[in-house]
């Protein structure tokens, strides 16, 4: 096996291994960290933009609501002004189209009133008041002819400004009324006032307008008394209950919080030449109901997209980290393989070196003892000394035994070479078993071999084959407690293959574990120093040799590994 780490000492590689196993513990943390960081970078912009969008939408909704309230206030103001102007113009027309004398006639005035009623509706009475405040003529339900208005505020105002509109008051039949007065001049230059009382028709106009979003439109006078009924503030002539905003020439917005009504948007406008302030009220809560709905929807979508993003990131990071873990494990496996090969090579070199160094003195002992034996045989003096001969035979036999051992050590050392050559399965097995026979004897493990003499040679790398056998037999030994038997058999198979099976009577492997035993780092002996690499290395080696490995096992009955090996050279060697 070639490896870039071949020259590294086993000690250094041991460090590499422990460093790697340290790394293995951190995958959960790596995964968590990358998940959190990725999620953070993905979600922060999403949430940030959602918040911005939320605020912008809310702001524009608010502005929109205010604009709508303001627009409604302006339009309503126009309607109210138009309504009042129409009445005022009607009165003005009456004053212009009749002579002063005609106007002073109560009869004529009654006719005019009925025409006004016919044309406009709502006119209750009409009166002519001279510059001194004395009502010269009157037509209407009350007997007000001759009444003196000189000290009344509305009279002074009319005389000063030319026109006035009164506050709402409960007049005829307890119906709210307003009166409109206009100052006029007769051809002789004397001023007089035409004053008409009309039924208060504005609530009806407003009720047609205030339809949506719990809106409210009402008039309030400058004293803060309600002039039309209000949904939020009370009935006609009740106090408004809040300070009036300052007088301005255009429509303005203010907002008010109220415990019962919630937050209100109020658009208001002073109606010129009248004591009235028009107010349009909208409930923010009602206005924002669709916005709240949209908000809920937005949050729902945000939540959904965040979940999708999180699930996606979770899946991707989990996949990446799993791949990283697998790659690291693969890397560690190769490190380990290299280390293992290196170790085996070192052991091989050591064995070969020791054998070689011992062989030479052994050869000398052999020759010297042989010489003594020769001399003893050829000299009559020692010929009959059986003790001498026995001793020499023992020496020579022991030398032979040493020779056998060193020869096996030497062939074990040959594994450093990586040439695939034909070799006898039996020979390699013998070499491997020399290391194990003593242990087998001690543990009363019976080793039986049945390998046919005519079994074809296998084309193998010597060292790899040794390693395969060593690994499997070592496993078999550790599976068996004291007493047991190891059976090694081999048969020729079709297709230039032989099958070598190594069966033990050990503890066996459960069906569940059986599927994983060739996986790297799968070990049931992790506490007892197992790395979980032995069988995965064996599997890899068998594949490198162009063979395959199978396993059968029953718990408490034993395990049988069958290795198929080629007997012909493959074209594509690793």
């Amino acid at each position, binding site marked *: 096996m070639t490896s870039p780490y071949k020259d590294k000492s086993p000690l250094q590689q041991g460090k590499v291994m422990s460093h790697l196993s340290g790394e293995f513990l951190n995958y959960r943390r790596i995964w968590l960290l990358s998940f959190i960081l990725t999620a953070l970078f993905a979600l922060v912009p999403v949430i940030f933009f959602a918040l911005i969008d939320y605020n912008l939408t809310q702001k524009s909704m608010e502005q929109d609501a205010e604009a709508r309230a303001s627009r409604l206030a302006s339009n309503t103001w126009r309607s109210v002004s138009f309504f009042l102007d129409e009445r005022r113009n009607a009165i003005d027309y009456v004053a212009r189209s009749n002579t002063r004398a005609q106007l002073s006639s109560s009869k004529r005035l009654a006719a005019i009133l009925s025409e006004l009623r016919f044309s406009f509706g709502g006119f209750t009475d009409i009166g002519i008041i001279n510059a001194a405040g004395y009502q010269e003529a009157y037509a209407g339900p009350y007997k007000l002819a001759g009444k003196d208005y000189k000290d009344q505020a509305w009279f002074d105002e009319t005389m000063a400004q030319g026109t006035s509109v009164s506050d709402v008051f409960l007049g005829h039949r307890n119906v709210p009324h307003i009166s409109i007065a206009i100052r006029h001049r007769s051809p002789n230059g004397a001023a007089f006032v035409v004053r008409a009382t009309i039924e208060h028709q504005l609530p009806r106009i407003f009720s047609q307008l205030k339809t949506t979003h719990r809106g409210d439109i009402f008039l309030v006078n400058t004293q803060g008394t309600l002039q039309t009924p209000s949904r939020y503030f009370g009935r006609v002539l009740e106090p408004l209950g809040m300070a009036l905003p300052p007088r301005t020439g255009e429509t303005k917005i203010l907002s008010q919080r109220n415990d019962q009504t919630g937050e209100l948007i109020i658009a208001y406008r002073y109606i010129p030449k009248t004591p009235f302030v028009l107010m349009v009220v909208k409930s923010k809560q009602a206005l924002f109901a669709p916005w709240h709905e949209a908000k809920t929807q937005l949050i729902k979508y945000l939540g959904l997209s965040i979940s999708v993003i999180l699930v996606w990131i979770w899946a991707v990071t989990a996949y990446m980290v799993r791949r990283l873990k697998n790659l690291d494990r693969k890397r560690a496996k190769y490190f380990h393989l290299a280390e293992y090969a290196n170790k085996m090579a070192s052991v091989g070199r050591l064995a070969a070196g020791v054998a*070689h160094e011992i*062989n*030479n003195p052994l*050869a000398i002992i052999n*020759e010297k003892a042989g010489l003594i034996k*020769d001399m003893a045989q050829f000299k009559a003096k020692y010929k009959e000394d059986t003790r001498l001969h026995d001793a020499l035979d023992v020496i020579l036999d022991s030398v*032979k035994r040493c020779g056998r051992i060193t020869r096996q050590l030497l062939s074990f050392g*040959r594994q450093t070479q990586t040439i695939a*050559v034909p070799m006898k399965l039996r020979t390699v097995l013998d070499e491997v078993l020399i290391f194990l026979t003593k242990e087998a004897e001690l543990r009363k493990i019976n080793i039986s071999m049945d390998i046919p003499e005519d079994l074809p040679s296998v084309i193998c790398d010597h060292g790899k084959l040794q390693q395969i056998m060593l690994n499997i037999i070592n496993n078999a030994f550790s599976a068996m407690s004291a007493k047991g038997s190891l059976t090694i058999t081999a048969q020729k198979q079709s297709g230039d293959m032989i099958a070598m099976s190594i069966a033990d009577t050990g503890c066996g492997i459960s069906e569940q574990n059986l599927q994983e035993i060739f996986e790297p780092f799968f070990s049931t002996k992790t506490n007892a120093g197992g790395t979980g690499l032995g069988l995965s290395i064996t599997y890899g080696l068998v594949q490198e040799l162009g063979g395959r490995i199978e396993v059968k096992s029953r718990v408490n009955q034993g395990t049988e590994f069958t290795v198929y090996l080629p007997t012909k050279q493959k074209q594509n060697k690793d």
Partner: protein
Amino acid sequence: MKVLLVDDEKELVSTLAQRLGFRGIEADWAATPQEAIALLDQNHYDIAVLDVQMPGMDGFELKEKLESAAPHMAFIFITGHGSEECYHIGCSKAGEAYYLVKPVDIDSLVEKLNSLKDKGETK
């Protein structure tokens, strides 16, 4: 039959020569390749038994040298190192049967010497 033994282990070759002598095989020995070449100049040998690993010159090189001086000679190799590579080269040069691993059994060496001698005679 006259045999030349070459091995850098002096004790080994000298004893081996002596033992072969007991078995009626005349053997000279040399502890270095140079000595061996010198011996060949003066004597005639049928077979040379060469150690594969020797300082200065290995057994195969020495074989080439000896063979060029005495083409009729047969060779047996003995080695203390049984590496695969050596084994293959040794076998291809000497034939599997004539490549022996130390410690060598004297009887099998004698047997091999005899069979080589017979081969040489039938040639």
